[in-house]
């Protein structure tokens, strides 16, 4: 009896499986043909108002990005015909999902360059919508949103605007006040105009705080100089690895100079911090202390850390007191900091660019930019009015210092190469791998730089 029932159940299951497959086979063939159009009109008609459209904003699935979901209700109230949907992916899958969405005809409307590559990569792959006409039609003016004109220019190529800057990180110095106090060294200045604050003085200060011991718990270093991406670092000392035309034609350099004596000398100065002056940790030590992508500064093992201002975000959790300071002068009178300006972009395949632009404008208003600082846990706005709120965001750090460091960075800053140069994710991968033997002291710069020069040339030609 029991057996019979069981056999019936299995037969039923098999039948179900076969039926399901038959049904699916039918529906797979039937629906596919007219589907794209159907989906389209579906989106248009939701709500029955006839005009309502849904736009999607594609971003990274982390709290400091997805906070925009909280801004949607107010926006939709003000724009009853527009619905906003936030589409997200973890950082590691950001690029692959974006490309898959575009290839699959499901392109998002609004996004930013949060993946491996930057703006130039998207621009050169022809993924972006030229916003110039939209801006003109709309009468959008950067100054109404307190966006500095020089920042607007970053994402303008040959007079055509492709992105509206929304957030701006800069390169700055964080220092561990406890370590300075213990070594009796005076704090570094936050004023970029202080001429006494030089690279050499930084090295002298660092020496007083460096302590290399057999006891790993005691070892600490004076300075960790991770200024910008690896290929950009020569610029700090005034050496230019990419030809001038790179910045005007969408990030395709006609020439690169990674094997020039100036560039090699610049890198040499940085590696000297590790191998000659011995005031900076090796990359192996840093990774041992901080893990794969971590920063040994947060473990309290570094006196001064030159890095992105995102390091500030964790400041409230550090078990020691910190301060912010200017990046010291290193021989380049024009450039001392790096800007990491994230733009809002509209993708070429967007079906509703106008509505997408409405949403972008909304995100740029002073009120929303101010609100975003709190909601995101400290994202720095480009809106100079909202920036005042940002400067006050960090416990225990003088807002005046943050302000000076930011304003100095804007004055003496250059946009990070990773946003400006084409095929950048490949260049970056190549740099990390080829420089590795130098970082461990197994090869010299003179051996490695010509190889890098050759490979950069190949990558750019692709």
């Amino acid at each position, binding site marked *: 009896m029991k057996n019979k029932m069981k056999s019936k159940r299995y037969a039923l299951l098999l039948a179900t*499986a*076969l039926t399901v*497959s*038959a049904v*699916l*086979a039918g529906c*797979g063939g039937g629906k596919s043909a007219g589907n794209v159009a159907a989906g389209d009109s579906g989106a248009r008609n939701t709500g029955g108002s006839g005009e309502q459209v849904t736009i999607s904003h594609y971003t990274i699935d982390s709290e400091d990005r997805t906070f925009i979901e909280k801004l949607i209700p107010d926006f939709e109230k003000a724009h009853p015909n527009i619905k906003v949907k936030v589409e997200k992916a973890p950082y*590691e899958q950001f*690029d*692959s999902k974006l*490309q898959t969405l*575009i*290839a699959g005809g499901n392109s998002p409307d609004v996004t930013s360059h949060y993946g*491996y*590559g930057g703006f130039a990569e998207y621009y050169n*792959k*022809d*993924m972006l919508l030229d916003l110039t006409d939209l801006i003109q039609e709309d009468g959008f003016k950067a100054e109404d949103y307190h966006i500095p004109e020089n920042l607007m220019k970053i994402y303008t190529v040959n007079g055509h605007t492709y992105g509206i800057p929304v957030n701006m990180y800069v390169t700055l110095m964080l220092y561990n006040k406890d370590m300075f106090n213990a070594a009796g060294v005076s704090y570094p200045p936050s004023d970029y105009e202080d001429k006494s604050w030089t690279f050499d003085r930084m090295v002298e200060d660092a020496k007083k705080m460096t302590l290399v011991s057999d006891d*790993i718990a005691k070892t600490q270093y004076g300075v960790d100089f991770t200024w910008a991406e690896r290929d950009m670092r020569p610029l700090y000392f005034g050496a230019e690895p990419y030809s001038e035309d790179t910045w005007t034609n969408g990030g395709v350099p006609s020439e690169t100079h990674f094997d020039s004596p100036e560039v090699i000398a610049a890198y040499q100065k940085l590696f000297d911090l590790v191998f000659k002056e011995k005031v900076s940790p090796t*990359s*192996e*030590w840093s*990774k*041992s*202390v901080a*893990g*794969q992508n971590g920063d040994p500064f947060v473990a309290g093992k570094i006196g001064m850390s030159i890095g992105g201002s995102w390091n500030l975000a964790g400041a409230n959790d550090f078990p020691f007191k910190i301060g912010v300071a200017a990046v010291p002068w290193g021989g380049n009178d024009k450039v001392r900091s790096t800007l990491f300006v994230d733009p809002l972009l509209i993708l070429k395949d967007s079906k509703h660019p106008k509505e997408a632009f409405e949403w972008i404008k909304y995100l740029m208003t002073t009120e929303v930019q101010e609100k975003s600082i709190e909601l995101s846990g400290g994202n720095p706005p480009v809106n100079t009015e909202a920036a005042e709120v940002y400067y006050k965001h960090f416990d225990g750090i003088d807002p005046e210092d943050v302000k000076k460091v930011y304003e100095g960075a804007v004055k003496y800053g250059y946009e990070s190469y990773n946003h400006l140069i084409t*095929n950048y*994710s*490949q260049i970056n*991968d190549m740099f*990390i*791998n*080829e420089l*590795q*033997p130098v970082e*461990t002291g197994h090869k010299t710069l003179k051996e490695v730089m010509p190889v890098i020069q050759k490979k950069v040339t190949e990558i750019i030609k*692709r």
Partner: protein
Amino acid sequence: MSVIKSESRRQTFYMYLFISPWLVGFLIFALYPILSSLYYSFTDYDIIHPPRFIGLANYTEMFHNELFWRSVKVTLRYTFISVPVQLLLGLGFALLLHQTIPWRGFFRTAMYFPSMVSGVAMSLLWYWIFNPQIGLFNYMLSWFGIHGPAWLMNPDTALYALIIMSLWTAGSGMILFLAGLQGVPASLIEAANLDGAGRFRIFLNITLPMISPVLLFQLIMGLIDSFQVFTQAFVMTQGGPNYSTWFYVYNLYTSAFKEYRAGYSSALAWVLLIVVMLFTAVIMRLSRRYVHYEGGSSR
């Protein structure tokens, strides 16, 4: 004659009836993506613009591509070390745990444990275990007076660190072998035992042939999987340091999603398919002599 004919027709009928779910699924879900990727492999396709036919150019390019050859070397070295060692470990654990031994259930669960943990947690853990300064691995080596290398941060050892990591998941091999060992008739072993055969002889002449189908399965799947190693390189080493863990599929993935070259990437995929297919065919052919299927007539 007609009996044989109708018997073969009956076999064909039932075979297709039973495999029909997969056949249908293959036609609906797999055929289109597979054929598409084959087509892409002959095109210049950057995902944004429509593919453009370029013949065999993608295939000829890879033979001059330095990273391609590097990835082949890395992948082959990984495969030829990790597959056999994993098999032996899996079999060893299974034999140990097939005995009646105290805490057997606990041991089995514990052995399989590392295979259950996934993703980020595992990579964080391994990063700490291989940490040259404070890592457990070098700490244990120091008991034997060995000064351990920097493992994941050293181009000479990173690949071996990943191989050692892969051994932690020998537990899945173990449960497959355990399942296989359940099918070895106790009566056979008892009989051999009464004949005075030693443990090793029994293993070699009875157990091994009886579990050879499982062994074959694991060998082939081990090969297919390790030729496609990706996650470790993607999450832990990003192909580095100095390209020492630039695996074949990592290269394929970067070609597609970092370089926007889906055409070239598809060509890489098809070369992999053909190579793995050849390996599998050779193993299948060789195995005919050694692998023992009980249901003789069906083979």
